[in-house]
């Protein structure tokens, strides 16, 4: 009898929660967001039919990851210079036209990670994670800053710390490897790999901490997954109740091991990979790289590989592999209702754009979409938003007009994209026109 009562209660709670979340991500509310219209040139972006884009902000100092509050305010993590002493900006739109006209800030550090969950905003420097309490208007409450994680490794290579939360009170932090391939001498031609790679003790993986405990460091956290060279984009997939991450694959196959690899091999072989992670997983870095043409885990040349030997028997396979060096800097599973049905639950990925493909032409500098259902890809990836870089074959990382680096979903289902080259924030909306 007690049990039945318990189940009834649970059912009631679940129903209430579901209807609540349906409200939060529901259709566009008339009046406020109804007035948001695309810029005449779609802010320079090429988008699928029916989509439009507007510039929300410009000239910010290297904005990296972004988050939108349930009230529709945009929070931006800066990684360039502090803006009037602040490293996180809140852009508020008082007129409801999608063009924020009020900027405030908090946090006196630069960095990459930012996310909002259950009334708190989380933001990271390159060695710490902070959280802030939000009031019922979605504003950060003054004096609410708490340092929840500290002392993470920052050796100025793969140093950014991205963050995401699950639904069980845990926060996941990427700690990138301070190395390309764990050579005895980093990026030195012919230098052997260190065995076992000692970097993996404190980096090259995802660490799990409590979202509400102060001053945690390595001893308080769990190495949730290892063998990940550098993750910048990550998200929690609610359908699969699982962490998904995007790895930046290794560089310099040709220049470090010219006997085994050509320029073209370097430009094409070490895939950028998406992994679905379970606790304890190992993705194989630095011992292997993933070849997207053959779908095989290949033994890294630092560890005896020659471009033909396979490896990584204990390493997981990626959920999807993308062309090499495109630099996936953000991952977002779309849960909104604004976009057409095919986008629901699918993955958007912001590719910052390559440099290590040279002398071959650069790739990336766009936002990609992959259809998903229940945490599994159901189709091939396609370019969703392009036109950021503008230069064609003459493109270089310096002359690229814009480089996509962060993604966020608004409460109305808009998709926001940040660019850390010129500091532009875009908002992509579906108009059906």
């Amino acid at each position, binding site marked *: 009898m007690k049990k039945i009562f318990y189940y009834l209660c649970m059912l009631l709670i679940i129903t209430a929660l579901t209807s609540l979340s349906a409200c939060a991500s529901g259709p566009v509310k008339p009046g406020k967001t109804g007035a948001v219209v695309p810029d005449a040139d779609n802010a320079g972006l090429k988008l699928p039919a029916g989509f439009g884009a507007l510039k929300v902000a410009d000239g910010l100092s290297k904005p990296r990851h972004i988050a939108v509050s349930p009230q529709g305010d945009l929070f931006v993590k800066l990684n360039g210079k502090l803006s009037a002493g602040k490293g996180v900006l809140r852009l508020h739109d008082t007129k409801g036209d999608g063009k924020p006209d009020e900027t405030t800030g908090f946090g006196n550090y630069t960095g990459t990670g930012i996310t909002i969950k259950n009334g708190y905003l989380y933001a990271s420097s390159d060695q710490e994670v902070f959280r802030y309490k939000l009031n019922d208007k979605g504003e950060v409450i003054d004096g609410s800053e708490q340092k929840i994680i500290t002392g993470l490794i920052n050796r*100025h*290579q793969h*140093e950014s710390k991205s963050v995401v939360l699950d639904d069980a009170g845990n926060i996941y932090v990427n700690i990138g490897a301070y190395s*390309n391939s764990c050579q005895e001498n*980093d*990026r*030195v*031609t012919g230098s052997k790999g260190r065995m076992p790679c000692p970097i993996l003790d404190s980096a090259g993986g995802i660490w799990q901490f409590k979202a509400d405990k102060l001053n945690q460091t390595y001893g308080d956290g769990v190495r949730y997954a290892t063998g990940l060279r550098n993750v910048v984009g990550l998200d929690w997939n609610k359908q699969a109740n699982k962490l998904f991450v995007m790895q930046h694959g290794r560089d*310099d196959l*040709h*220049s470090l091991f010219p006997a085994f690899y050509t320029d073209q091999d*370097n430009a094409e072989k070490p895939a950028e990979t998406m992994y679905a992670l379970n606790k304890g997983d190992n993705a194989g870095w630095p011992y292997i790289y993933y070849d997207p043409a053959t779908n095989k885990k290949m033994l890294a040349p630092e560890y005896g590989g020659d471009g033909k030997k396979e490896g990584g028997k204990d390493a997981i396979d990626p959920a999807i592999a993308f062309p090499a060096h495109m630099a996936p800097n953000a991952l977002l599973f779309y849960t909104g209702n604004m976009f057409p049905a095919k986008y629901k639950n699918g993955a958007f990925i912001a590719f910052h754009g390559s*440099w*290590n493909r*040279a*002398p071959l032409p650069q790739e990336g500098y766009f936002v990609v979409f992959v259809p998903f259902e229940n945490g599994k890809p159901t189709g091939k990836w396609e370019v969703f938003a392009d036109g950021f870089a503008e230069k064609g074959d003459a493109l*270089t*990382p*310096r*002359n690229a007009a814009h480089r996509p680096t962060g993604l966020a979903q608004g409460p109305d289902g808009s998709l926001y994209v940040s660019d850390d*080259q010129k500091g532009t924030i875009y908002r992509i909306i579906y108009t059906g026109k």
Partner: protein
Amino acid sequence: MKIKLIFSGMLVLLSTAMLSAQKQAAPAVDIKKSIESGRAIYMQLCLTCHQKDGGGVPHLNAPLDGATAVVANDKAKLIRIVLKGMSDRIEIDGEYYSNTMTPHSDMKDQQIADVLTFVRNNWTNKASAVSAAEVKAVRGKTK
């Protein structure tokens, strides 16, 4: 920024002019040869990181085109970087770069001289040549 560049460019021109007046700099045809030889080395060893436009990669690999330190008179510094590589986070004209650079001590003195002469005289850069003798002198002190 621009003014600074123009100013340092003028300084370099001025000092080049003074040098050539003082001790008869190498004939222009040799510099051309050095630049061409340096270009081939750049394409093979430097291009992937520093890029075809010499712009490097923001936040990671240092730019060479337009960088004050590249066209400055301290050639020994440039020679040392090529010989020993770089693993420090460095500031160039207000931006920070932190990727690791491979050491190239296996290159011959003349090759290092050529590639640096190319880098100092390509894109928008204009500065005096680097000689094999200068590389040899620095290599002797760096070992």
